[in-house]
């Protein structure tokens, strides 16, 4: 993760701009609320949702515990099916590999299935530098690409845009990338979809190399699984001659039967659908059917680091459903860009610092980008205890150099709270000063009083009242 997100300010600073953007906030509020309601309805239909969640969690935990075993099994199965497996320890290595594989085909264009993993390694930028153009084929991803924007949601990358904005983007930029939008394009969703369809159809029929990720990789059979809602992915997976799938090592599941659980959990959690519209699976190569060449690039890029953290490793269970984004009150007010990471929202706040470390911004501020309200944990289909991981990461952040004034304040507070006599003295000081405590404070405490009044300090603490009462100075309350 180098170029696109370099120099991102810390979360609070990036969030401020977003919070003050009324259009963005209203777009986000409308969109997240709609998906949220759909998800709630789809989930409440199932009596065994909690059992399914537990099953999903168990499968992922078991797989992660024996990850080496399942990865080797996957590798053999892919090879046996006529595919080739490549291992990439980081983004740079993965990008070099994919670039070479594309060059070997003699082509300079690839079509892409929407994939978080290739965004994580910034593959499009790397291919671009090598003179290879990558065309996104997911509608929302296309909108983001055409507007030279960044995705702000795992599942709905253009969630921060409304229909009118999308119309303008398609009308003014499609021609630069290929088939132009028709004259007089309106913001009717059908018209927008039709414009994208025409534009993409030409692309599918002329491009020989496709790049995808995968939602799951089945170790026993070497099968890749992609879930999508538009069918564009399916076109990319079947038409081109060469298919390159870049897949994080945590995406492996042991066997085909495990999919039964995830194919229920994922669509209901992500789009609020009972069943996923397009579920494609592919295994190696088959003569006369689908790609003639298949490459699987297995990506680490910080995942084994995360795996070594006993609390944090649960983030690797994530199936990227984005339910946690849609319920997160912080995400709803900031959108994805504020997180400075391709993984925004609650999952981004725990995954990104683990993949990239917590020493730089925005990673160091991400564990604090939460009020710990727990809504993310409640909806997560694989029960990732995001608040617990956030606290764990905060411990990591404060154990690093820096944070001097906060550490001093915390230590002082800890000292005061370490004994009731000290607390009593501190309270007495506060009470003595109560008439001069203003309702608005200077920085940094002004962060609180900029928008809220402090409560006034009462004349007597509870403990003083209790003592007075015990000494008979006062009878009732």
């Amino acid at each position: 993760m180098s170029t696109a997100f370099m120099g991102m300010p810390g979360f609070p600073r990036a969030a401020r701009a977003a919070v003050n953007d009324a259009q963005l906030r209203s777009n986000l509020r409308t969109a997240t609320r709609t998906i949220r309601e759909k998800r709630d309805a789809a989930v409440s239909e199932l009596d065994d949702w909690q059992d399914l969640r537990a099953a999903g969690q168990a499968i992922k935990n078991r797989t992660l515990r024996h990850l080496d075993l399942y990865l080797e099994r996957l590798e053999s199965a892919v090879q046996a099916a006529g595919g080739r497996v490549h291992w990439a320890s980081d983004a740079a290595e993965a990008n070099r590999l994919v670039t070479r594989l594309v060059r070997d085909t003699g082509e300079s264009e690839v079509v892409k299935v929407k994939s978080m993993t290739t965004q994580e390694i910034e593959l499009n930028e790397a291919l671009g530098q090598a003179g290879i153009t990558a065309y996104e084929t997911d509608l929302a991803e296309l909108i983001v690409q055409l507007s030279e924007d960044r995705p702000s949601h795992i599942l709905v990358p253009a969630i921060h845009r409304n229909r009118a904005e999308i119309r303008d983007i398609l009308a003014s930029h499609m021609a630069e990338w290929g088939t132009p939008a028709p004259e007089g394009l309106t913001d009717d969703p059908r018209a927008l979809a039709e414009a994208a369809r025409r534009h993409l159809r030409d692309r599918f029929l002329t491009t020989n190399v496709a790049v995808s990720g995968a939602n799951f990789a089945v170790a026993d059979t070497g099968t890749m699984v992609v879930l999508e809602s538009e069918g564009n992915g399916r076109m990319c997976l079947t038409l081109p001659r060469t298919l390159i799938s870049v897949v994080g090592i945590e995406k492996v599941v042991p066997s085909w039967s495990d999919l039964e659980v995830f194919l229920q959990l994922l669509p209901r959690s992500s789009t609020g659908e009972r069943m996923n519209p397009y579920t494609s699976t592919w295994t190696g190569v088959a003569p006369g059917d689908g790609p003639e060449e298949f490459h699987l690039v297995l990506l680490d890029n910080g995942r084994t680091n995360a795996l070594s953290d006993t609390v944090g490793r649960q983030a690797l269970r994530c199936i990227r459903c984005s339910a946690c984004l849609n319920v997160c009150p912080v995400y709803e007010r900031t959108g994805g860009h504020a997180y400075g990471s391709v993984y925004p929202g609650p999952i981004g706040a725990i995954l990104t610092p683990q993949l990239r470390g917590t020493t730089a911004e925005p990673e160091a501020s991400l564990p604090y980008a939460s009020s710990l309200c727990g809504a993310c944990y409640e909806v997560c289909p694989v029960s990732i205890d995001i608040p617990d991981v956030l606290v764990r990461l905060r411990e990591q952040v404060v154990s690093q150099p820096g944070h001097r004034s906060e550490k001093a304040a915390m230590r002082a507070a800890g000292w005061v709270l370490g004994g009731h006599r000290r607390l009593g003295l501190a309270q007495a000081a506060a009470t003595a000063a109560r008439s001069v405590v203003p309702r608005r404070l200077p920085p940094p405490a002004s962060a609180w009083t900029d928008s809220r009044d402090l409560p006034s300090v009462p004349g007597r603490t509870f403990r003083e009242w209790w003592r007075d009462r015990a000494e008979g100075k006062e009878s009732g309350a």
Partner: protein
Amino acid sequence: MRIALFVTCLNDTLFPATGRAVVRLLERLGHEVVFPRAQTCCGQMHYNTGYRRDAQRIAVHFVRTFSDAEAVVVPSGSCAAMVRDNYRRLAEPGSRLARQVENLLPRVYELTELLTDVLEVRDVGAYFPYSVTYHPTCHGLRMLGLGSRPYELLQRVRGLRLVELPEARECCGFGGTFAVKNADVSAAMAADKLGQVSATGAEVLCAVDNSCLMHLGGTAQRAGTGVRTVHLAEILSSTEQEPTVP
């Protein structure tokens, strides 16, 4: 029953009326309240901000202070959740603290749990003639799973008109140091929550946690909204003879 009150540091210092209300309420119901003087704080702020060692020290002090209690009542959802949910995570497995925590936890109750589950009372004989809306708070809702308990208590308060709060499950944006570290987002969340509260037309906003109420009350005051914030304990302690005036 002899009940030990953990008043919490915030209530002790800034909201002593809540502690007094708990004492009054439990005594009215015929129970004895004790106040272990050595108590200080639950360590929530330190824990949530990443200061694990400090939080551990505070937890050690807490379990020592309350180890003999028959029951501990905590008039704060987040502090009750800190003790009940996070002390387990704080204690190293097999440590002395871990044993003490396991021993004490089953006797620690948030106020509405104590009333409905232990004392098995729903009508506490309260009188509070105002329209009230209830904010369930994240800790009360998700970590403690208080469910219908607060509503069952409020519904039986004479004179009280309970008004439903839309989008009640959404966080108010306090989150301890979150309110300072991410002040803009926190303020936006409070403003939205307050908008929902105002839309109910209720005179009083109540909750089982003074930290959320402080955040929302401070926002309401700055915004000049008429709604007043009152802790649930103060509503339940209110009677015709000695009414709580919001």
